[in-house]
């Protein structure tokens, strides 16, 4: 379990990185926290010719609030978010997600950008940030563009990055009071990859919401108009109106054939809705599987 030979470089600024990315021959992998790439290199699941370490670029560690949007650089770590070293517009929802990612040593090094680009279906940010309506900011030598995260993640370990392009920042819209938020994941044990994730962002007053089901071995299932999951109408009693059979049918349509897996996903989703209905988003964080 030692990696095949590769070249390693650590550019000091973004233009240099993008230039190298544009001109490098052979296969290139960007490394941020290395918490997934490291093991994949050792297992020889990837054998790049060049590893470009992007942790030496200050811009990628930046965090800022732009109006109603929180902008986090690609190399902001899960621990930065967990510990509140970066600003927040989600009433603590981001910190609660971060707290339950893997184990603390992983959170110390693992980055939000790396997680999104790796796009492991079981990753917390992939599902939670889609539910929060986040966008990603992509850059290459030919310029920058923004993409909804739900569009960016195209499948398991698959994202819409063009050749020579990289993710530089994540843009997360505010989660104002009055919007119900719930995020529940289920793992075999604390810190392991999730077997089921439910993330819900419900606007009971406006009668709309977004339901995202994650950890399903493909890109998360996004229900942008989830009214059918609530008997056709979303109101303050949305958690009570949740129709488990409709959710089960949805998962069955999505190709989930194992009834046990469907039951677990539906249960987790119901609990995310229950959490959203019972706890306003700014309440204190909880630790454990419901965090």
């Amino acid at each position, binding site marked *: *379990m*030692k990696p095949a*030979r590769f070249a390693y470089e650590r550019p000091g600024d973004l233009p240099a990185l993008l230039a190298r990315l544009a001109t490098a021959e052979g296969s290139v992998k960007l490394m941020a926290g290395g918490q997934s790439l490291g093991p994949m290199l050792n297992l020889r699941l990837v054998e790049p010719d060049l590893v470009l370490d992007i942790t030496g670029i200050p811009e990628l560690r930046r965090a800022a609030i732009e109006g109603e949007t929180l902008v986090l650089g690609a190399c902001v770590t899960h621990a930065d978010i967990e510990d509140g070293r970066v600003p927040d517009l989600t009433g603590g929802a981001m910190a609660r997600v971060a707290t339950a990612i893997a184990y603390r040593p992983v959170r110390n090094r693992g980055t939000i950008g790396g997680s999104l680009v790796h796009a492991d279906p079981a990753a917390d940010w992939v599902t939670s940030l889609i539910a929060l309506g986040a966008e990603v900011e992509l850059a290459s030598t030919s310029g920058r563009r923004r993409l909804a995260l739900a569009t960016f993640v195209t499948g398991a370990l698959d994202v819409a990055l063009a050749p020579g392009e990289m993710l530089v920042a994540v843009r997360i819209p505010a989660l104002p009071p009055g919007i119900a938020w719930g995020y529940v994941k289920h793992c075999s*044990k604390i810190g392991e990859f999730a*077997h089921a994730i439910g993330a819900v962002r419900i606007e009971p007053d406006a009668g709309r919401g977004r339901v995202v089901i994650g950890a399903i071995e493909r890109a998360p299932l996004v229900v942008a108009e989830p009214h059918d999951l609530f008997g056709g109408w979303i109101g303050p009693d949305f958690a009570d109106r949740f129709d488990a059979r409709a959710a089960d049918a949805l998962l069955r349509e999505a190709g989930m054939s194992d009834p046990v897996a469907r*039951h*677990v996903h539906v249960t*987790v989703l119901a609990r995310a809705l229950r959490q959203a209905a019972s706890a306003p988003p700014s309440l204190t964080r909880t630790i454990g599987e419901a965090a």
Partner: protein
Amino acid sequence: MSDANGLTEGIGARLPRKEDDRLMRGRGHYVGDLRLPGLQDVAFVRSPLAHARIRAIHVPEAFRDRVFTAADLEGVLPIRAVSGLAGFKVSEQPILAKDKVRQVGELLAICLAPTRAEAEDIAAAIVLDLEELPAIHDMLAAREPGSALVHEDWGDNVFLETLVDVNFASALDAPIKVSRTISTGRQCMAPIEGRGTVVHLDHRMDQLVVHTASQMPHIVRNGLAECLGIEQGRLRIVSPDVGGGFGYKAILLAEDVCLAWLALRVGHPVRWLEDRREHLTANANCREHHYRITAYAERDGTLRGIDCEATVDSGAYSAYPFSACLEAAQVASILPGPYDFPAYRCRTWSVATNKCPILPYRGVARTGVCFAMELILDAVAAEAGIEPWTVREKNLVRADQMPFDNITAKHFDSGDYPQALRRALEAIDVGAVRARQRTPEPDGRRIGLGLSIYCEQAAHGTSVYSGWGIPMVPGHEQAGARLTPDGGLELRIGAHSHGQGLETTLAQVAHEILGVPVARTRLVHGDTAMTPYSTGSWGSRVMVMAGGAVAAACRELSLRAVRIGAHLLQTDPATCRFEAGRVVGPSGDVGLDQIAHTWYRRPQDLALDVDPGGLEVTAGYKPQRDSGTFSYAAHAALVAVDPDLGSVEILDYVIVEDGGTLVNPLVVDGQLYGGLAQGIGTALYEEMRFDSRGQPLASTFADYLLPGPAEVPEPRIDHMATPSPYTQFGVKGIGEGGAIAPPAALANAINDALRPLGVAMLHSPVSQHRIVEAVLAARAAASSSRKAA
């Protein structure tokens, strides 16, 4: 022995472990820490298929001098771990596979390079031409006629079949008869440190020095010498710090044979460090048992008899030295556990499959038999409509029966099993649990209580192992004790300490006799050049055996000290006694440091008739009866089960344990903590599954789940201490017990929680997926029966 403050360092002292100062600061010295000039690394080419004929191994020309295959190993013999039990079929495990591979991960070629990464590059360039054969992956199917064969010349796939029948027919008219199929998953024991071997040539001694992470360096030397066909004197085995054994390192490795051969061939130091993928997919299988078990009982829960068919998946080869059948054959003799009943029948099969050889993991067969027995007892209780503890109270061996010979002639030395159960029931507070269960939990989870009781035969010796007829039979254990010229003490044992705390506890034994401070006593172990022969550390034997030998050596040293001391005191030795590290005579006393100084540095002051053996002793020991000590425990678990997600939270865990006289209760606690963690892994998380082609389905710890800190609660431990009548100080072996009972206690607790839903979990691990699957099935059955009504 107490000092002026009433503090003691002797038997019974709760001393922190001396070795932790080094181990906890990262200063341990493991095989992987060795740095030798000219060292090169080995990566192996391993079989990607479970069962295949080898057509060819294509080695690129550029690597021809760095790659070695079976064709190169001329004169090296296969590993043969035989058994003396009638009908045992012998497997020959090739050092490198030649004609056929019989498991994923079997060794095919050695690749040598300056670094492991480069050695893996070479391994990746080798092309295998294999003809895949049907994989034998299911032990029950493998028993059937017409199955494909792991070893063609056998005619079937059964290493060994055994049958025990004691008066079985007398149970048949019992009013209660309960049958269950109970099974345990295949596991990979997982020490933090993997295996590893570094071999170099010592030209001065004309020796191959094999540094290998081993629980039994002397046994490795036996096996290695036999495979290589060289004199034992040309082999020195060094086992430095070892990061956990648990049975995984109680084996002669084909890799060790390869590395020793390779060092002879290339003449420079060579190293192989196992990586986690090799560990999981190629090397570490254990535990897989299948039971069809029937209990016969009276309506009050009194057992009339047990009938069982037990099958163990032994894997492709018989592992050296414990063999492929120790596990299954032991099942037959230890299934009755701590229970006394009058009729018994047990048939066992050790079955060969295309999996890696089964190894003896902490608890060995006991974890499986405890699981089967304790689950069937709960089934009896449910059938009889009585509490699970009532069934156990009715059938446990009683204190007034000790010493007790059970139905399979196991000799229980001492103990009060019903008392252990009573204390566990009180500690877990069964009344409060049953009251709590009457009201639904606010969070929708279900509460359950589970019990499990076992006995652990430990330090069983010659009389037991000569009957098994495996390559290793323990005899007298020996220990060396040597006073240094400044009055310090060196102890030498041939067994190995790798987590047991022997550097501390054996110093405590010595202190009890010689009074030398624990801090001034050093344990020398893990090196065949420096220690007496021993079969090593296994079977919870070392405290009893090496402890007894250290005591014997120290007693002899004290006698010699008295003779020298008496001369210095100018008195007759008969008037002197040895006390707290001093020789005390009628008119004065002299300390060990002065006695040592005199022997080594001022021999002119010694009497003419002094014992010429001086202050260095090797003494041997065997308990008065070597059929084994019987430690035991009652475990009680309280769990909360989420029926919709299958999550299990352990709310409380009680261990009432009797390990005889405890040399160091803190070390015993540590053994119980570690054993419990492993038992929780067996119960809830750990399983190596295989597909129908015999492919292992986990290759990293992301797929093979071990419990972590959040999954292992701190147990509440209550020590009983009934001395063994047969051993020094009354000590008993306790090393494995912590890992034996938890799977049964937790499964019984989960079943207690889910029984009202009509769910019974009878396979370990009781994974979340299995729980949800069973709950959904029970709900579907209930709903269809409602419809039918």
